[in-house]
């Protein structure tokens, strides 16, 4: 009888703990190796282009957190915001009760100071707000208003890079060249453990004054801190297999061995990063012919390309948008998608008047479809992909001669000036498809052959309908209508096929759940696991000791 009561009590306790959730488990030092290699220099200056990965996100925080996975803006140091009626002014309400790690309060004045830093010195305009046409910044009560010259609601994203620093510290120094920021006064969840900084490692501990509370109503983070360690490509595999890291921002060719060593805990997630594509110069024959471009697209099987790469990145679709945004491409995909179809590709080329020559390459008027396919020297994963592309093109009677050239010089410059016709290139996708397609296609960034186009806008392609939709998006605060505009852009893009999207460069995220739980994963992609900037912060705040 007594035993039964005990069992019942135990069951009740179990049920209780299940329904109400267990109190979060605190403690533990996360062992992390970001991709920075070699000797560490104690640089936590957020205005330095060479600052350590932890600088923004562990020490310093931004006005809002812009989630790169779903493109959503989230309150952070600003509680909320609203656009004025004319959509030229955005007003942020600054969160009260935020403290620096020395216990002093973050003030509206600090926000104002931080925002104004970039006004006179472009190098301090990390958020790019001033370059975007910011005119004035005004503080009133607990609100800070930013007024722009033109309407552009997408500037909201840039506030996700507006780092807030204490005026009392930074107004006494030249922010760009200050090397004395050894122990930052900052609002973020972590601070440096004194004396822990060495040439190969340093240790962060929790900031006891941090403003965010956990489920247990005590300040976050749950973990005690982070042990940062540098390593090298040659070492990281051994150390991961030996269980020396909880989080590694590294690429690992034999990733399957890592998982096999402890399938329950050893995991990885390589979410889609920058888009790699088959570049065609749209102003040069024969790539100025949309049917030729589409025939080339019909030679390509993205899946076959990525399957041969190790580790495999995520293949792209012809819509060029990341899978998290695939909704905007649905309509266009059903109308204009191109899959590998050798017979169809050949037929399309023949319809354009091309005939197979003795070498098995299509030819018209003595001009064979034979091109140099440029790929950056030493980028082995891309070179492998280029070889697969060349093989697939051969099947439809197009010859691609792989030619290596150094990146960024002459690679970037040749593409920007339009010197090359055929290459493997990439576009930094930013946080939303709007950013991606603006950088890629907007005619304001276009340049004729021989003149320098803006970075990433080098395909020599422009389309009025694309411009119109991209511009309309900028003055449209409603996400629903924004999506419609983007659907138009994707549709135009697919209709004209100015290039062939191949795959997304992976974001390297290898982790172990042996000591900590709460990592993002393909099943729960709540944040983008990149070691730089604010994207990692929500992860560091969610991790709990196992």
């Amino acid at each position, binding site marked *: 009888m007594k035993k039964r009561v005990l069992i019942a009590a135990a069951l009740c306790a179990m049920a209780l703990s299940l329904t109400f959730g267990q109190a979060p488990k605190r403690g533990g030092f996360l062992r992390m190796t970001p991709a920075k290699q070699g*000797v560490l220099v104690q640089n936590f200056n957020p205005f330095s282009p060479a600052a350590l990965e932890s600088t923004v996100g562990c020490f310093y925080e931004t006005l809002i957190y812009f989630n790169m996975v779903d493109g959503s803006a989230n309150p952070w140091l600003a509680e909320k915001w609203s656009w004025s009626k004319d959509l030229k002014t955005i007003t942020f309400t600054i969160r009260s009760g935020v403290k620096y790690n020395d216990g002093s309060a973050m003030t509206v004045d600090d926000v104002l100071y931080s925002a104004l830093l970039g006004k006179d010195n472009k190098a301090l305009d990390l958020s790019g707000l001033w370059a975007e046409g910011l005119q004035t910044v005004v503080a009133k009560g607990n609100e800070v208003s930013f007024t722009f010259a033109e309407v552009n609601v997408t500037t909201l994203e840039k506030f996700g890079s507006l780092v807030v620093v204490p005026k009392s510290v930074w107004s006494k120094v030249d922010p760009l060249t200050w090397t004395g920021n050894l122990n930052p006064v900052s609002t973020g969840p972590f601070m440096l453990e004194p004396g822990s900084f060495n040439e*190969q*490692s340093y240790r962060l501990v929790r900031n006891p004054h941090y403003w965010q509370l956990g489920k247990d109503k005590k300040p976050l983070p749950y973990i005690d801190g982070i042990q940062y360690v540098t390593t090298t490509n040659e*070492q990281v595999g051994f150390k991961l297999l030996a269980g020396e890291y909880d989080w590694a921002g590294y690429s690992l060719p034999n990733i399957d061995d890592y998982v096999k060593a402890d399938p329950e805990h050893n995991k990885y997630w390589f979410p889609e990063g920058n888009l790699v594509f088959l570049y065609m110069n749209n102003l040069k024959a024969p790539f100025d012919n949309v049917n030729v471009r589409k025939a080339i697209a019909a030679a390509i099987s993205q899946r076959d390309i990525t399957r041969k790469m190790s580790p495999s990145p995520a293949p792209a679709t012809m819509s060029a948008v990341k899978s998290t945004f695939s909704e905007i491409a649905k309509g266009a995909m059903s109308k204009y998608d191109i899959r590998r179809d050798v017979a169809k590709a050949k037929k399309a080329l023949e319809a354009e008047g091309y005939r197979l020559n003795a070498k098995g390459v299509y030819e018209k008027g003595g001009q064979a479809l034979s091109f140099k396919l440029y790929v950056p020297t030493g980028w082995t994963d891309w070179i492998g992909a280029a070889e697969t592309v060349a093989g697939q093109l051969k099947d439809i009677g197009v010859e691609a001669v792989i030619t290596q050239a150094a990146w960024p010089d002459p690679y970037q410059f040749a593409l920007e000036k339009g010197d090359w016709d055929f290459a493997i290139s990439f576009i930094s996708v930013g946080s939303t498809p709007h950013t991606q397609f603006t950088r890629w296609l907007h005619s304001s960034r276009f340049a004729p052959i021989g003149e320098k186009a803006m970075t990433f806008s080098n395909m020599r392609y422009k389309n009025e309908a694309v411009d119109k939709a991209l511009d309309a998006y900028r003055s449209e605060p409603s996400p629903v209508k924004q999506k419609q505009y983007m659907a138009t852009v994707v549709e135009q893009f697919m209709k004209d096929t100015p290039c062939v999207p191949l795959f997304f460069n992976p974001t390297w995220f290898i982790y172990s759940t042996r000591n900590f739980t709460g990592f993002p994963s393909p099943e729960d992609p709540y944040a983008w696991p990149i070691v730089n900037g604010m994207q990692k912060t929500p992860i560091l705040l969610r991790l709990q000791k196992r």
Partner: protein
Amino acid sequence: MKYFLRKLGLLAFTLFVSVSLNFFLPRMMPGDPARALLDKMENLQPEQLDTIRAAFGLDTDDPLIVQYGRYLRNTLRGDLGTSFSRFPTPVSEVMRVALPWSIGLMGICTVISFSVGTIVGIGAAWRRETKLASITVGFFSFVRSFPYFWLGLVFIYFFAFKARIFPIGSAYDVEAARGSASWWLSVLRHGALPAMTIVVSSLGAWILTMRNNMINVLAEDYITVAMAKGLPLQRIKSMYAAKNAILPSVTGFAMSLGFVIGGGLVTEMVFAYPGIGYMLYQAVNAKDYPLMQAIFLFIAVAVLIANFAADIAVMILDPRVRDGAK
């Protein structure tokens, strides 16, 4: 004395030439350092590029020769500038961190390797008919032919990863308090495997050089005369044969001491060991002119001074050099 002065003059001249080359060579590399740094960042703005370039001091319109003069003046003053890739940290600060590790590991290993190799080489030549001598020479010549990179990985796999005798990499235990006894112990433990790899792979060269020189010297008439006169064998071995046979090795040793600073690239990569070699590699990739210049300067100075020291050592060891230079 004249010999010494001539060598000193040559040292000064070669130093000047290498310092000058150091300025011009990196600037002949294609590419823009500001761009190399900013390419890593997301929100690239042309205006930012210009301000970064200004902060680097690259926006100057001064002719190259004026920049060169400024560079010479700063170098003489000991001002090595600000690193680009680790901006805004000064180059001297960046190098100060890495230099002790490079010199510590590579320097000690080079000395060990040279001393042990030379002694073993002498022994192997003196008793060249024994089985032990041929096995030792054969073994180390065999090991020497392995690529160092591969040997390092194999050592890590067996001694650190499988057997767990040594740590897998890094230079020290990150958990130990800096400067404490346990930290120093961890430095030794972490340094042991890379040191072993360096010594094992470089020993063969010293053994072979010394052995071959020694065998040549042993065939000389004056050795036969010394033997015939009945001098003690130990005296013949060390004072007559080895002293003369070591001359070419001393020059080689000086050269390799000079390369201690930058020569650890592969070790530093394989063992994730902090040092100047990997730093130089990164500096070249990032077009970090000031850091590159400073490292090359150190290497050049080290090689030249080591050579100078070798010349002096040879002068002391070899009376022919001294007397011939009268």
